[in-house]
């Protein structure tokens, strides 16, 4: 009679050896404020950037927003164009879907690269046209804008992190 033995703790031992082997692998933590990962080139960050000299006030972005976050008030200008008097985006309500950026026919609206845009008051999240402009801290990302995308650095991927352990902190 052949005695068959199974489930005598072999599975438990295999589990324990696996967790033990993980001790010798490099941890995949990034220490946040000191080390940051580079987000993707098409990152739909938490901000919108508006180019004053390209916007014509056509309102395509406002029509394509599914929540109606963009408010545009224009007045008639002197050279058969519109002068944009008010371009306000409620970034507190915005879901950052990017439909407005894709819709703009003059490439005047961009998504931003930053994700640290929290504020203490809800009212401060409604951005007027001066706050939406391009500046040193507000740089555009390449979402739906291939020319900007080609100039940005490549994203850091977890796949490319080395596996050996050093730098035990």
């Amino acid at each position: 009679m052949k005695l068959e033995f199974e489930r005598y703790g072999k599975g438990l031992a295999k589990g324990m050896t696996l967790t033990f082997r993980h001790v010798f692998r490099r941890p995949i933590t990034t220490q946040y404020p000191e080390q940051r990962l580079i987000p993707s080139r098409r990152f739909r960050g938490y901000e919108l950037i508006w180019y004053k000299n390209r916007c014509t006030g056509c309102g395509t972005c406002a029509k394509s927003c599914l929540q109606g976050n963009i408010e545009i008030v224009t007045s008639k200008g002197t050279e058969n164009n519109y002068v944009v008097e008010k371009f306000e985006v409620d970034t507190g309500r915005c879901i950052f879907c990017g439909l407005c950026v894709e819709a703009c026919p003059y490439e005047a609206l961009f998504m931003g690269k930053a994700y640290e845009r929290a504020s203490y008051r809800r009212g401060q999240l409604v951005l007027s046209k001066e706050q939406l402009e391009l500046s040193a801290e507000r740089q555009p990302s390449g979402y739906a804008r291939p020319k900007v995308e080609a100039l940005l650095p490549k994203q850091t991927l977890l796949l490319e992190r080395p596996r050996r352990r050093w730098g035990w902190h």
Partner: protein
Amino acid sequence: MLWPLDNYWAHFGVFTVIVLGFFLIGVMAFTYVERRGFGPFQLRLGPNRAGPFGVLQPVADAIKVLLKEDIVPARADKWVHWLASVIVLLPVLLILAVIPFHKGHGLIPDLNIGILYVVAVSALGVMGIFMAGWASNNKYSLIAAMRVVATMVSYEIPLVLSIIGVVLISGSLSLNDIVEGHTIPFFLLTPLGFLVFLLSAMAEINRGPFDLLEADSELVAGFHTEYSGMKFALFYLAEYGHALAMSAIAATLFFRGWVGPGSEYIGVLWFLVKMLFIFILLIWMRVTFPRLRIDQLMGFAWKCLFPLALINLLIVGVEVVAWEAPWWIIFVNFAVAGGLILLWSRFFKLGGGRVEVRV
């Protein structure tokens, strides 16, 4: 022997301070080791922000817990609610009082019924947890309290039986004599006893794969759901203190306590190293395994650990009486342990446990 000045009061005063200090610092060190220890097993770093290498993390936890508001539920039994948190801490301190840190030194040096006292006192913890669960006026805590009474009482028996195996070989109940009794550490002489002791101790301290009393995926926090502030701190201290005490007992009984190569004066250091080793075993088992269900837990205690402990006792007894426990029983014991584990695995039941309910 009474250490400084040979005076009763001086000895107890100094050692009370030492034991309390050891307890508090030991618990803080254990929580630190546990949280940093989980890190490498899970490919992450543990907490490393509070202080250099996160050493002040337990201090930060202590301050946080002290500053919290102490909430007692409206219809809870106030005195029992308060008393439970105290009673849970009691057995831990009582056990730490008798452990020999060094040759013949301890708060109560060389108690002649050492291990019997330890076993008796550790049963008090059950009452504290049950009181906590009952007095909280919360169904989750009540379920946890019921589970406690069942499991902690059932796991006392394999615990005691595995300890008796060690006592038989060394011939005395006193912890000092157990440490110095045999030159070979007992985990080699009674491997099955060591295994049973480790598993029962894990169940007694509600940790690892046996932690369904505070299973936070089922009963939000089990018996300490309704506790906050200092009372929760006492439960937290008691849980890690109990782990500390059990590691200390295991190091004393099975690994020869403070004995180690080197001069006699660094015995305390060897003791701490062995305690830490056992604690890392506990952490390793907690990290890897899921939890057992209540009826499987009871089945494991009564159908698996209890008979194994009894058979271990029988074999050790035969060896002590017939051959006075020489060194070659190591191989016999390992073979017996392996054979018994393989044999008992045939009783392993999968799943099941469905009760027919008339809807």
